[in-house]
């Protein structure tokens, strides 16, 4: 079994250690017996590359990098990205990347930057008077409601879903989409949009395996079955954060 992981703009969208998600996917792919090929999708690459991918990933960055990338998405690659996500390609989009896929991002000085309108949501930066939402976060997700998924969030924008039932998770501790309605991220078709850094996948191997299994299911129409996984350290790392809040 071989799947392709498309990593959007690694040179630009990598401010918050989100590369750990690629490392985690590669590790668990090996454990599950999947050949995972990581393919970089950068500014100069043709947009057709996107359609060959089984998993798509993009991380977060600073405003300037996001602006550089946003132009390429809007004028060039966005249409194929939208097609892929609508077709059910597995995806993970973190922080800035998550915001891109909504209708728009309103900056602190009131400028509206249009997004790709793949996700039915919008994001607004409330300005300097409202502090960034920073800290540990724990959520219960649609993928596995029993277990708390843990990460670290650091965002100035507040995101609002048009339909709260689309949320990726419910906030147990931390801020989530906007610090008010207890929603976190979005789960649309097979794609996750989330604010969770940490990075999200290493400490939450069930999410990692879910993405890989979904990709295999979609491509090969079969399910992977394995009984036991060694995730003792992942659990300890996660529990260390959880026990500070619960």
């Amino acid at each position, binding site marked *: 079994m071989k799947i392709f992981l498309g990593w959007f703009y690694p040179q630009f969208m990598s*401010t918050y250690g989100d590369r750990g998600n690629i490392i985690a996917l590669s590790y668990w792919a090996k454990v599950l017996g999947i050949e995972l090929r990581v393919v970089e999708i950068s500014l100069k690459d043709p947009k057709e590359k996107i359609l060959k991918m089984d998993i798509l990933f993009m991380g977060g960055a*600073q405003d*300037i990098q996001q602006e550089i990338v946003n132009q390429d998405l809007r004028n060039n690659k966005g249409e194929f990205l939208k097609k892929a996500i609508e077709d059910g390609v597995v995806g993970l989009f973190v922080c800035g990347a998550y915001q891109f896929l909504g209708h728009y991002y309103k900056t602190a000085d009131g400028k509206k930057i249009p997004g790709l309108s793949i996700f039915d949501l919008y994001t607004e930066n409330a300005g300097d008077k409202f502090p960034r939402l920073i800290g540990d976060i724990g959520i219960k997700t649609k993928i596995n409601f029993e277990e708390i998924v843990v990460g670290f969030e650091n965002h100035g924008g507040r995101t609002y879903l048009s339909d709260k039932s689309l949320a990726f998770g419910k906030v147990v501790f931390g801020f989530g989409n906007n610090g008010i309605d207890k929603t976190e991220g979005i789960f649309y078709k097979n794609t996750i949009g989330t604010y969770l850094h940490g990075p999200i996948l290493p400490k939450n191997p069930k999410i990692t395996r879910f993405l890989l299994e979904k990709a295999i299911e979609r491509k090969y129409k079969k399910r992977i079955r394995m009984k036991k996984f060694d995730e003792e*350290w992942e659990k*300890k790392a996660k529990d260390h954060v959880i026990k500070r809040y619960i």
Partner: protein
Amino acid sequence: MVFYLSIILGKLIVFFSQIFKIGAGSTWPGHLALIFDKNFLKKIFKKNPHLQTVVVTGTNGKTTTVALLKYLLEKKGWQVFTNQEGANLLNGIASSLIKNTNLFGKIKKQVAIFEVDEFNFPLIIDEFLPQMVVVLNLFRDQLDRYGEVNTIASRWLSALKRLSQTTKVFLNGDDPNLYYLGKNIHSLVFYFGLEKENMPHKTVSFDVDFNYCPVCFNLLSYKKVVYSHLGSFFCQKCGFSPKDVFTLSLKNITFPLLGIYNQYNLTAVLLLLIKGFNFDLKELISLLKDFLPVFGRQEKIVYEDRVFYLFLSKNPVGFNQSLETAFSFVKDKKNIFWIILNNRIPDGLDVSWIWDVEFKKIFVVDKKVFVSGDRAFDMAIRLKYEPTELKKNIIPIINLKKTLKKILKETKKNEKILVFPNYSAMLEVRKILIGKKFL
């Protein structure tokens, strides 16, 4: 009157904290003085026009740079004082001034060197204008506390613009963003850098945050790279590239500190002493060989007949550099590693950055890697996910003392242990190995 009372009170606190060995002496005197008299700093500088002030800022290398400046100035017979490491807010600076003044506000020493962190640098410039400023580099560090590098850079730019036209500003010319800052300020700017032949890499690594041109936002190109975004950069689109960068031929220099990052610190110091104090380069170079590393930075500590080397590693660029330096230094590559990761207030709470450090090399030999600290298991996963067959060698134990016991069991006399702690972890492990409280 309030000014003099502040000095007396401050001095009393210094006195008592020394007698009772409480660690408040480095910030409290200044803290109180600033409460009593908002203009305390302005007044004390006005009373001492002879005092030369140097501010050193940047993400990595500040402490070593300050120590080297002080060392060389003292070798040349100047009297120098500094703020204590970690006390780099206004109160720490005020405290160091109180310690060095007499009751009438007069300071005998001739040079004050202040280490100021990247976040606080603009706040310090609001309070007083130094005669000289060194900006070493800007990398991401503690994003949850300091913010993103671009935010820092734009705050720096407006701070540097407030400096007077006669202020001498020393900037890293191999750093595209700092070079750009230098082109937009009114002071006397000098750039330091490394010679192209001493730049070891051809491509930028993954810990980089400034890979685009600060003028036209095109992706930057590099002829050679030193590490992270430092190197001989140029923009293919608009032609942005550095000129007039001071470099040193390092062939004939005996400098006791390892690591290419220390070549930057050294070059910055020498340039400052030449341009700011009219010292002779040859003479300065002859004085370097006896300089000792500052604590926690390549520091050697012998404990129970084992030799521990401490490499402070508190952000992705710093960690990658520590590893690179450690590997150049241990030729036999058979040493035990001990990585310690905390996430306390001085470290930043977010540990996501460890995923941008390259750990592959650690597994080139079949030796144990101990992992401790509050976030030991985050680090353990980071190492576990490296593609290697040597996962059995990773031993996570949160508690430092328990880890140390294990290490002693695993090692023989005279064996070397390479320790990579982040900031609070460094203070903690040092306290255990030396057996006394520091700071």
